[in-house]
Protein backbone atom coordinates (compact mmCIF):
# COMPACT_ATOMS: atom_id res chain seq x y z
CA UNK A 1 0.00 0.00 0.00
CA UNK A 2 1.53 3.32 -1.07
CA UNK A 3 1.59 6.34 1.15
CA UNK A 4 -1.19 8.06 -0.74
CA UNK A 5 -3.39 4.95 -0.73
CA UNK A 6 -2.71 4.48 2.98
CA UNK A 7 -3.73 8.06 3.61
CA UNK A 8 -6.95 7.66 1.69
CA UNK A 9 -7.70 4.33 3.41
CA UNK A 10 -7.13 5.90 6.81
CA UNK A 11 -9.07 8.96 5.79
CA UNK A 12 -12.05 6.90 4.58
CA UNK A 13 -12.18 4.97 7.84
CA UNK A 14 -12.38 8.17 9.82
CA UNK A 15 -15.26 9.59 7.84
CA UNK A 16 -17.92 7.63 9.70
CA UNK A 17 -16.64 8.83 13.04
CA UNK A 18 -18.66 11.66 14.66
CA UNK A 19 -15.42 13.56 15.23
CA UNK A 20 -14.04 12.95 11.78
CA UNK A 21 -13.74 16.64 10.95
CA UNK A 22 -11.54 17.27 13.93
CA UNK A 23 -9.39 14.23 13.21
CA UNK A 24 -8.97 15.19 9.57
CA UNK A 25 -8.17 18.72 10.59
CA UNK A 26 -5.50 17.41 12.95
CA UNK A 27 -4.08 15.36 10.13
CA UNK A 28 -3.85 18.42 7.92
CA UNK A 29 -2.72 20.85 10.60
CA UNK A 30 1.02 20.41 9.77
CA UNK A 31 0.29 20.97 6.08
CA UNK A 32 -1.63 24.21 6.77
CA UNK A 33 1.14 25.35 9.12
CA UNK A 34 3.82 24.68 6.53
CA UNK A 35 2.00 26.46 3.72
CA UNK A 36 0.91 29.45 5.79
CA UNK A 37 4.27 29.61 7.58
CA UNK A 38 2.80 29.65 11.08
CA UNK A 39 3.30 27.52 14.17
CA UNK A 40 1.01 24.43 13.95
CA UNK A 41 -0.60 25.40 17.25
CA UNK A 42 -1.71 28.70 15.71
CA UNK A 43 -3.70 27.13 12.89
CA UNK A 44 -7.34 28.01 13.48
CA UNK A 45 -9.71 25.20 12.30
CA UNK A 46 -12.08 27.91 10.98
CA UNK A 47 -9.46 29.99 9.17
CA UNK A 48 -10.35 31.59 5.84
CA UNK A 49 -8.48 32.98 2.86
CA UNK A 50 -7.64 36.59 3.67
CA UNK A 51 -7.86 36.12 7.45
CA UNK A 52 -4.16 35.46 7.81
CA UNK A 53 -1.65 37.75 6.14
CA UNK A 54 0.10 34.64 4.84
CA UNK A 55 -3.03 33.08 3.26
CA UNK A 56 -2.70 35.06 0.04
CA UNK A 57 -3.16 34.07 -3.59
CA UNK A 58 0.18 32.26 -3.86
CA UNK A 59 -0.31 30.39 -0.58
CA UNK A 60 -3.84 29.48 -1.64
CA UNK A 61 -2.60 27.95 -4.86
CA UNK A 62 0.22 26.17 -2.98
CA UNK A 63 -2.46 24.71 -0.71
CA UNK A 64 -4.63 23.56 -3.63
CA UNK A 65 -1.64 21.86 -5.29
CA UNK A 66 -0.57 20.24 -2.01
CA UNK A 67 -4.09 18.84 -1.50
CA UNK A 68 -4.11 17.52 -5.06
CA UNK A 69 -0.82 15.74 -4.47
CA UNK A 70 -1.71 14.40 -1.07
CA UNK A 71 -5.16 13.06 -1.92
CA UNK A 72 -4.66 12.27 -5.59
CA UNK A 73 -7.55 14.53 -6.58
CA UNK A 74 -7.95 17.27 -9.15
CA UNK A 75 -9.20 20.65 -7.94
CA UNK A 76 -10.74 22.61 -10.79
CA UNK A 77 -11.07 26.39 -11.16
CA UNK A 78 -14.56 26.45 -9.63
CA UNK A 79 -13.38 24.65 -6.51
CA UNK A 80 -10.24 26.78 -6.23
CA UNK A 81 -12.55 29.75 -5.67
CA UNK A 82 -14.87 27.80 -3.36
CA UNK A 83 -12.34 26.16 -1.04
CA UNK A 84 -11.47 29.35 0.81
CA UNK A 85 -11.82 28.14 4.39
CA UNK A 86 -10.54 25.14 6.28
CA UNK A 87 -14.09 23.84 6.96
CA UNK A 88 -14.89 24.09 3.22
CA UNK A 89 -11.70 22.19 2.39
CA UNK A 90 -12.46 19.43 4.88
CA UNK A 91 -16.02 19.17 3.59
CA UNK A 92 -14.78 18.95 0.01
CA UNK A 93 -12.31 16.21 0.89
CA UNK A 94 -15.07 14.24 2.59
CA UNK A 95 -17.27 14.44 -0.51
CA UNK A 96 -14.38 13.50 -2.78
CA UNK A 97 -13.72 10.48 -0.61
CA UNK A 98 -17.35 9.37 -0.61
CA UNK A 99 -17.55 9.79 -4.35
Amino acid sequence: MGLLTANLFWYKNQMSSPTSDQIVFEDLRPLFAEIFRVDPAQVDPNAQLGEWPSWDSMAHMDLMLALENRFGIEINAENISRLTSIPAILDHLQHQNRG
Partner: protein
Amino acid sequence: MAEQILRISPELQIPEHLIGQVQSKLAYVDESITSAIVSSDGKQIELRLRPGADSKSDLESKVQIVVVEMARGAVQPKVEVLEDHLQRATSYSADPMPDLLNRNEVSWEYNGIYTFGPLLTRLIDVFETYFLSLASSFDAKPHRFPTLISAEKLGRVNYFRAFPHSLTFATHLREDLNIINDFSEYSEYGETGLNTPPESFSKIQALLSPAVCYHLYFSLADHLLPGGQLAATAVGHCFRYESTNLNSLERMWDFTMREIIFVGPADFVLQNRERGRQQMAEFLERVGLAYKVESANDPFFVGEFRKQAAFQNAFQLKYEIRARLPFKDSTLAVGSYNYHQDFFGRHLNISLPDGKPAHTGCIAFGLERLAYAFLCQFGLDPTVWPEPIREMWNG
Protein backbone atom coordinates in the same frame (compact mmCIF):
# COMPACT_ATOMS: atom_id res chain seq x y z
CA MET B 1 26.45 34.85 -41.04
CA ALA B 2 22.90 33.68 -41.54
CA GLU B 3 20.08 33.53 -39.03
CA GLN B 4 19.87 30.12 -37.35
CA ILE B 5 16.81 28.04 -36.62
CA LEU B 6 16.55 25.80 -33.56
CA ARG B 7 13.71 23.28 -33.22
CA ILE B 8 12.95 21.94 -29.77
CA SER B 9 10.54 19.23 -28.64
CA PRO B 10 9.23 20.40 -25.27
CA GLU B 11 9.43 17.95 -22.35
CA LEU B 12 5.71 18.51 -21.80
CA GLN B 13 3.13 19.05 -24.50
CA ILE B 14 2.04 22.65 -24.13
CA PRO B 15 -1.74 22.79 -23.54
CA GLU B 16 -3.69 24.73 -26.16
CA HIS B 17 -4.76 27.46 -23.72
CA LEU B 18 -1.10 28.19 -22.87
CA ILE B 19 0.43 28.26 -26.36
CA GLY B 20 0.26 32.04 -26.80
CA GLN B 21 1.45 32.74 -23.26
CA VAL B 22 4.42 30.35 -23.45
CA GLN B 23 5.32 31.73 -26.88
CA SER B 24 5.41 35.32 -25.59
CA LYS B 25 7.61 34.30 -22.62
CA LEU B 26 10.18 32.60 -24.86
CA ALA B 27 11.32 36.05 -26.02
CA TYR B 28 12.85 36.53 -22.56
CA VAL B 29 14.79 33.26 -22.50
CA ASP B 30 17.90 34.49 -24.27
CA GLU B 31 19.13 37.60 -26.10
CA SER B 32 20.00 35.48 -29.15
CA ILE B 33 16.31 34.71 -29.82
CA THR B 34 14.71 36.92 -32.47
CA SER B 35 11.40 35.06 -32.67
CA ALA B 36 9.69 32.03 -31.19
CA ILE B 37 6.80 29.99 -32.51
CA VAL B 38 4.99 27.20 -30.69
CA SER B 39 3.21 24.76 -33.02
CA SER B 40 -0.57 24.61 -32.77
CA ASP B 41 -0.42 21.12 -31.22
CA GLY B 42 2.02 22.33 -28.54
CA LYS B 43 4.59 19.66 -29.44
CA GLN B 44 7.20 21.75 -31.23
CA ILE B 45 9.00 25.03 -30.61
CA GLU B 46 10.84 26.83 -33.37
CA LEU B 47 13.32 29.53 -32.40
CA ARG B 48 15.03 31.92 -34.77
CA LEU B 49 18.42 32.97 -33.48
CA ARG B 50 20.75 35.84 -34.26
CA PRO B 51 23.72 34.92 -36.44
CA GLY B 52 26.60 33.51 -34.42
CA ALA B 53 24.46 32.37 -31.47
CA ASP B 54 26.16 29.54 -29.60
CA SER B 55 25.60 27.26 -26.60
CA LYS B 56 22.41 25.75 -27.97
CA SER B 57 22.24 23.13 -25.22
CA ASP B 58 22.11 25.91 -22.61
CA LEU B 59 19.41 27.64 -24.63
CA GLU B 60 17.38 24.45 -24.95
CA SER B 61 17.56 23.79 -21.22
CA LYS B 62 16.30 27.32 -20.51
CA VAL B 63 13.40 26.79 -22.91
CA GLN B 64 12.52 23.52 -21.17
CA ILE B 65 12.48 25.32 -17.81
CA VAL B 66 9.95 27.84 -19.14
CA VAL B 67 7.74 25.10 -20.56
CA VAL B 68 7.81 22.93 -17.45
CA GLU B 69 7.27 25.86 -15.07
CA MET B 70 4.27 27.12 -17.00
CA ALA B 71 2.67 23.90 -18.18
CA ARG B 72 3.27 21.34 -15.44
CA GLY B 73 0.05 20.86 -13.48
CA ALA B 74 -1.56 23.83 -15.25
CA VAL B 75 -5.18 24.26 -14.24
CA GLN B 76 -7.50 24.28 -17.23
CA PRO B 77 -8.96 27.81 -17.11
CA LYS B 78 -12.66 28.40 -16.86
CA VAL B 79 -13.22 30.62 -19.89
CA GLU B 80 -16.13 32.90 -19.20
CA VAL B 81 -17.44 35.00 -22.07
CA LEU B 82 -19.57 37.86 -20.75
CA GLU B 83 -20.22 39.54 -24.10
CA ASP B 84 -19.66 38.26 -27.62
CA HIS B 85 -20.12 40.70 -30.51
CA LEU B 86 -17.17 39.55 -32.59
CA GLN B 87 -19.36 38.92 -35.61
CA ARG B 88 -20.72 42.47 -35.77
CA ALA B 89 -20.42 43.80 -39.30
CA THR B 90 -17.67 46.37 -39.71
CA SER B 91 -16.74 48.37 -42.80
CA TYR B 92 -12.98 47.82 -43.21
CA SER B 93 -10.83 44.73 -43.48
CA ALA B 94 -7.36 45.85 -44.60
CA ASP B 95 -4.27 46.36 -42.46
CA PRO B 96 -4.26 50.12 -41.68
CA MET B 97 -0.55 50.28 -40.80
CA PRO B 98 0.91 50.83 -44.29
CA ASP B 99 -1.45 53.79 -44.83
CA LEU B 100 -0.80 55.16 -41.35
CA LEU B 101 2.96 55.02 -41.93
CA ASN B 102 2.71 56.49 -45.43
CA ARG B 103 0.69 59.44 -44.18
CA ASN B 104 3.04 59.89 -41.22
CA GLU B 105 0.08 59.37 -38.92
CA VAL B 106 2.26 56.81 -37.17
CA SER B 107 6.01 57.09 -36.96
CA TRP B 108 8.29 54.37 -35.57
CA GLU B 109 10.87 55.84 -33.22
CA TYR B 110 12.23 52.61 -31.74
CA ASN B 111 10.89 49.13 -30.93
CA GLY B 112 7.59 49.73 -29.17
CA ILE B 113 7.95 53.53 -29.31
CA TYR B 114 5.69 55.36 -31.77
CA THR B 115 4.60 58.92 -32.36
CA PHE B 116 1.05 59.62 -33.52
CA GLY B 117 -0.22 62.29 -35.92
CA PRO B 118 -3.47 64.27 -35.86
CA LEU B 119 -5.83 61.46 -36.92
CA LEU B 120 -4.95 59.06 -34.11
CA THR B 121 -4.47 61.85 -31.59
CA ARG B 122 -7.92 63.27 -32.27
CA LEU B 123 -9.52 59.81 -32.32
CA ILE B 124 -7.99 59.09 -28.92
CA ASP B 125 -9.42 62.40 -27.69
CA VAL B 126 -12.84 61.26 -28.89
CA PHE B 127 -12.59 58.09 -26.80
CA GLU B 128 -11.23 60.13 -23.90
CA THR B 129 -14.30 62.39 -24.05
CA TYR B 130 -16.46 59.32 -23.51
CA PHE B 131 -14.25 57.89 -20.76
CA LEU B 132 -14.38 61.17 -18.85
CA SER B 133 -18.17 61.13 -18.98
CA LEU B 134 -18.12 57.48 -17.88
CA ALA B 135 -15.85 58.44 -14.97
CA SER B 136 -18.11 61.31 -13.94
CA SER B 137 -21.08 58.92 -13.81
CA PHE B 138 -19.23 57.27 -10.90
CA ASP B 139 -18.35 60.67 -9.44
CA ALA B 140 -14.74 59.59 -9.93
CA LYS B 141 -12.43 62.40 -8.88
CA PRO B 142 -9.70 63.36 -11.36
CA HIS B 143 -6.07 62.70 -10.46
CA ARG B 144 -2.69 63.30 -12.11
CA PHE B 145 0.02 60.75 -11.51
CA PRO B 146 3.73 60.84 -12.32
CA THR B 147 5.38 58.80 -15.05
CA LEU B 148 8.04 57.62 -12.60
CA ILE B 149 7.12 55.24 -9.82
CA SER B 150 8.87 54.38 -6.58
CA ALA B 151 10.95 51.17 -6.65
CA GLU B 152 10.47 50.78 -2.92
CA LYS B 153 6.69 50.90 -3.22
CA LEU B 154 6.56 48.54 -6.22
CA GLY B 155 8.61 46.10 -4.18
CA ARG B 156 6.10 46.36 -1.36
CA VAL B 157 3.34 44.99 -3.63
CA ASN B 158 5.55 42.13 -4.92
CA TYR B 159 5.65 43.59 -8.43
CA PHE B 160 9.23 42.46 -9.01
CA ARG B 161 8.33 38.83 -8.33
CA ALA B 162 5.28 38.86 -10.57
CA PHE B 163 6.46 40.90 -13.58
CA PRO B 164 10.28 41.17 -13.57
CA HIS B 165 10.53 40.68 -17.34
CA SER B 166 8.54 43.77 -18.28
CA LEU B 167 10.10 46.35 -15.95
CA THR B 168 11.58 49.57 -17.32
CA PHE B 169 14.10 51.15 -15.00
CA ALA B 170 14.83 54.84 -14.58
CA THR B 171 18.39 55.77 -13.75
CA HIS B 172 20.82 58.67 -13.97
CA LEU B 173 24.55 59.19 -13.88
CA ARG B 174 26.02 58.85 -10.42
CA GLU B 175 26.91 62.08 -8.67
CA ASP B 176 30.60 61.96 -9.58
CA LEU B 177 32.36 64.67 -11.54
CA ASN B 178 34.63 62.25 -13.41
CA ILE B 179 31.75 60.02 -14.45
CA ILE B 180 29.66 62.95 -15.67
CA ASN B 181 32.59 64.48 -17.55
CA ASP B 182 33.50 61.11 -19.13
CA PHE B 183 29.92 60.60 -20.22
CA SER B 184 29.74 64.08 -21.67
CA GLU B 185 32.94 63.52 -23.65
CA TYR B 186 32.84 59.87 -24.71
CA SER B 187 29.23 58.67 -24.74
CA GLU B 188 27.86 57.65 -28.07
CA TYR B 189 25.23 55.30 -29.40
CA GLY B 190 26.84 52.11 -30.69
CA GLU B 191 25.28 49.16 -32.48
CA THR B 192 23.27 48.01 -29.49
CA GLY B 193 22.92 51.08 -27.30
CA LEU B 194 24.88 53.71 -25.40
CA ASN B 195 28.50 52.72 -24.75
CA THR B 196 28.36 53.97 -21.14
CA PRO B 197 29.79 51.53 -18.55
CA PRO B 198 27.02 50.19 -16.28
CA GLU B 199 28.88 51.32 -13.16
CA SER B 200 28.33 54.93 -14.23
CA PHE B 201 24.65 54.62 -13.47
CA SER B 202 22.94 55.12 -10.13
CA LYS B 203 21.18 52.43 -8.15
CA ILE B 204 17.55 52.04 -9.16
CA GLN B 205 15.21 54.09 -7.02
CA ALA B 206 12.50 54.66 -9.60
CA LEU B 207 10.99 52.93 -12.59
CA LEU B 208 8.67 53.99 -15.36
CA SER B 209 5.12 53.20 -14.23
CA PRO B 210 3.71 49.91 -15.47
CA ALA B 211 0.13 50.91 -14.52
CA VAL B 212 -1.89 53.94 -13.49
CA CYS B 213 -3.85 52.77 -10.46
CA TYR B 214 -0.79 51.82 -8.38
CA HIS B 215 -0.10 55.51 -7.74
CA LEU B 216 -3.51 55.94 -6.13
CA TYR B 217 -2.99 52.91 -3.89
CA PHE B 218 0.47 54.15 -2.89
CA SER B 219 -1.00 57.54 -1.98
CA LEU B 220 -3.49 55.81 0.33
CA ALA B 221 -0.92 53.52 1.99
CA ASP B 222 -0.84 53.28 5.78
CA HIS B 223 -4.03 55.30 6.14
CA LEU B 224 -7.65 54.83 7.00
CA LEU B 225 -9.56 55.22 3.72
CA PRO B 226 -11.27 58.65 3.88
CA GLY B 227 -15.04 58.23 3.72
CA GLY B 228 -14.70 54.45 3.55
CA GLN B 229 -14.82 54.30 -0.24
CA LEU B 230 -13.73 56.34 -3.25
CA ALA B 231 -13.73 56.45 -7.02
CA ALA B 232 -10.94 58.15 -8.96
CA THR B 233 -9.85 58.50 -12.56
CA ALA B 234 -6.54 59.27 -14.23
CA VAL B 235 -4.78 58.88 -17.53
CA GLY B 236 -1.09 58.13 -17.73
CA HIS B 237 1.76 56.65 -19.70
CA CYS B 238 2.54 53.04 -18.87
CA PHE B 239 5.67 51.10 -19.74
CA ARG B 240 5.91 47.36 -20.23
CA TYR B 241 8.97 45.97 -21.98
CA GLU B 242 7.96 43.11 -24.26
CA SER B 243 11.27 42.28 -25.95
CA THR B 244 10.92 40.92 -29.48
CA ASN B 245 7.13 40.95 -29.06
CA LEU B 246 7.26 44.76 -29.47
CA ASN B 247 6.54 44.59 -33.16
CA SER B 248 3.51 46.77 -33.91
CA LEU B 249 0.91 49.09 -32.38
CA GLU B 250 -0.52 45.95 -30.78
CA ARG B 251 2.40 45.82 -28.35
CA MET B 252 3.95 49.13 -27.39
CA TRP B 253 6.65 49.69 -24.78
CA ASP B 254 5.23 53.14 -23.97
CA PHE B 255 1.45 53.40 -24.10
CA THR B 256 -1.37 55.36 -22.47
CA MET B 257 -4.06 54.04 -20.17
CA ARG B 258 -7.21 55.70 -18.87
CA GLU B 259 -8.34 54.09 -15.64
CA ILE B 260 -11.37 54.46 -13.41
CA ILE B 261 -10.38 53.16 -10.00
CA PHE B 262 -12.48 51.99 -7.06
CA VAL B 263 -11.33 51.56 -3.47
CA GLY B 264 -13.61 50.44 -0.63
CA PRO B 265 -15.50 47.37 0.56
CA ALA B 266 -15.68 44.38 -1.81
CA ASP B 267 -19.34 45.03 -2.75
CA PHE B 268 -18.61 48.64 -3.69
CA VAL B 269 -15.72 47.64 -5.95
CA LEU B 270 -17.48 44.70 -7.60
CA GLN B 271 -20.74 46.56 -8.19
CA ASN B 272 -18.94 49.47 -9.80
CA ARG B 273 -16.79 47.18 -11.94
CA GLU B 274 -19.97 45.51 -13.20
CA ARG B 275 -21.75 48.85 -13.71
CA GLY B 276 -18.76 50.08 -15.68
CA ARG B 277 -18.86 46.99 -17.87
CA GLN B 278 -22.55 47.46 -18.63
CA GLN B 279 -22.11 51.13 -19.50
CA MET B 280 -19.19 50.27 -21.75
CA ALA B 281 -21.29 47.58 -23.45
CA GLU B 282 -23.90 50.24 -24.32
CA PHE B 283 -21.20 52.57 -25.67
CA LEU B 284 -19.51 49.88 -27.75
CA GLU B 285 -22.88 48.87 -29.17
CA ARG B 286 -23.53 52.45 -30.26
CA VAL B 287 -20.04 52.60 -31.78
CA GLY B 288 -20.58 49.26 -33.50
CA LEU B 289 -17.24 47.82 -32.44
CA ALA B 290 -16.81 44.07 -32.97
CA TYR B 291 -15.50 42.67 -29.69
CA LYS B 292 -15.94 40.19 -26.89
CA VAL B 293 -15.42 40.37 -23.14
CA GLU B 294 -13.88 37.27 -21.62
CA SER B 295 -11.95 36.12 -18.58
CA ALA B 296 -8.20 36.67 -18.73
CA ASN B 297 -5.06 36.75 -16.66
CA ASP B 298 -2.18 39.18 -16.27
CA PRO B 299 1.11 38.25 -17.98
CA PHE B 300 2.88 36.96 -14.87
CA PHE B 301 6.44 35.77 -15.38
CA VAL B 302 7.32 32.10 -15.57
CA GLY B 303 7.84 31.28 -11.88
CA GLU B 304 4.60 32.88 -10.72
CA PHE B 305 2.55 32.32 -13.82
CA ARG B 306 0.92 28.96 -13.17
CA LYS B 307 -0.40 29.75 -9.72
CA GLN B 308 -1.23 33.42 -10.14
CA ALA B 309 -3.00 32.91 -13.47
CA ALA B 310 -5.04 30.02 -12.03
CA PHE B 311 -5.97 32.14 -9.01
CA GLN B 312 -7.05 35.10 -11.17
CA ASN B 313 -9.10 32.81 -13.33
CA ALA B 314 -10.73 30.90 -10.47
CA PHE B 315 -11.78 34.09 -8.68
CA GLN B 316 -12.87 35.89 -11.89
CA LEU B 317 -10.55 38.80 -11.13
CA LYS B 318 -9.91 39.96 -14.69
CA TYR B 319 -11.97 40.30 -17.85
CA GLU B 320 -10.62 41.74 -21.08
CA ILE B 321 -12.37 43.63 -23.86
CA ARG B 322 -10.93 42.00 -26.97
CA ALA B 323 -11.60 43.86 -30.23
CA ARG B 324 -11.52 42.07 -33.56
CA LEU B 325 -8.71 42.83 -35.99
CA PRO B 326 -10.40 41.83 -39.27
CA PHE B 327 -7.26 41.94 -41.42
CA LYS B 328 -5.58 39.18 -39.45
CA ASP B 329 -8.61 37.36 -38.08
CA SER B 330 -7.52 37.80 -34.48
CA THR B 331 -8.40 39.89 -31.44
CA LEU B 332 -6.58 42.50 -29.38
CA ALA B 333 -7.13 43.41 -25.73
CA VAL B 334 -8.16 47.08 -25.63
CA GLY B 335 -9.44 47.29 -22.07
CA SER B 336 -10.01 45.33 -18.91
CA TYR B 337 -12.23 45.07 -15.85
CA ASN B 338 -10.11 44.20 -12.82
CA TYR B 339 -10.69 43.25 -9.19
CA HIS B 340 -7.69 42.85 -6.89
CA GLN B 341 -9.62 41.67 -3.81
CA ASP B 342 -7.84 43.07 -0.74
CA PHE B 343 -4.34 42.53 -2.17
CA PHE B 344 -3.37 46.21 -2.18
CA GLY B 345 -5.32 46.94 0.98
CA ARG B 346 -3.33 44.30 2.85
CA HIS B 347 0.10 44.96 1.37
CA LEU B 348 -0.19 48.73 1.66
CA ASN B 349 -2.19 48.84 4.88
CA ILE B 350 -5.19 50.74 3.46
CA SER B 351 -7.91 50.31 6.09
CA LEU B 352 -11.67 50.58 5.98
CA PRO B 353 -13.52 52.16 8.94
CA ASP B 354 -14.21 48.66 10.33
CA GLY B 355 -10.45 48.00 10.43
CA LYS B 356 -10.47 45.53 7.55
CA PRO B 357 -8.22 46.04 4.51
CA ALA B 358 -9.76 47.91 1.58
CA HIS B 359 -10.60 46.12 -1.65
CA THR B 360 -9.60 47.66 -4.98
CA GLY B 361 -10.46 47.36 -8.63
CA CYS B 362 -10.26 49.32 -11.83
CA ILE B 363 -11.55 49.51 -15.35
CA ALA B 364 -8.74 50.34 -17.73
CA PHE B 365 -8.52 51.24 -21.41
CA GLY B 366 -5.44 51.13 -23.62
CA LEU B 367 -6.02 54.28 -25.64
CA GLU B 368 -3.65 53.58 -28.54
CA ARG B 369 -4.84 50.00 -28.87
CA LEU B 370 -8.50 51.03 -28.83
CA ALA B 371 -7.91 53.67 -31.52
CA TYR B 372 -5.87 51.19 -33.57
CA ALA B 373 -8.54 48.47 -33.32
CA PHE B 374 -11.18 51.01 -34.31
CA LEU B 375 -9.17 51.93 -37.43
CA CYS B 376 -8.73 48.24 -38.23
CA GLN B 377 -12.54 47.88 -38.22
CA PHE B 378 -13.59 51.19 -39.79
CA GLY B 379 -10.62 52.52 -41.77
CA LEU B 380 -8.93 55.90 -41.90
CA ASP B 381 -11.69 58.01 -43.44
CA PRO B 382 -13.65 59.79 -40.67
CA THR B 383 -16.55 60.57 -43.01
CA VAL B 384 -17.55 56.90 -43.09
CA TRP B 385 -17.05 56.12 -39.42
CA PRO B 386 -20.04 55.14 -37.25
CA GLU B 387 -22.25 58.11 -36.44
CA PRO B 388 -21.62 58.38 -32.68
CA ILE B 389 -17.88 58.65 -33.28
CA ARG B 390 -18.38 61.09 -36.19
CA GLU B 391 -20.55 63.28 -33.96
CA MET B 392 -17.90 63.43 -31.26
CA TRP B 393 -15.19 63.89 -33.91
CA ASN B 394 -17.03 66.88 -35.32
CA GLY B 395 -18.24 68.16 -31.98
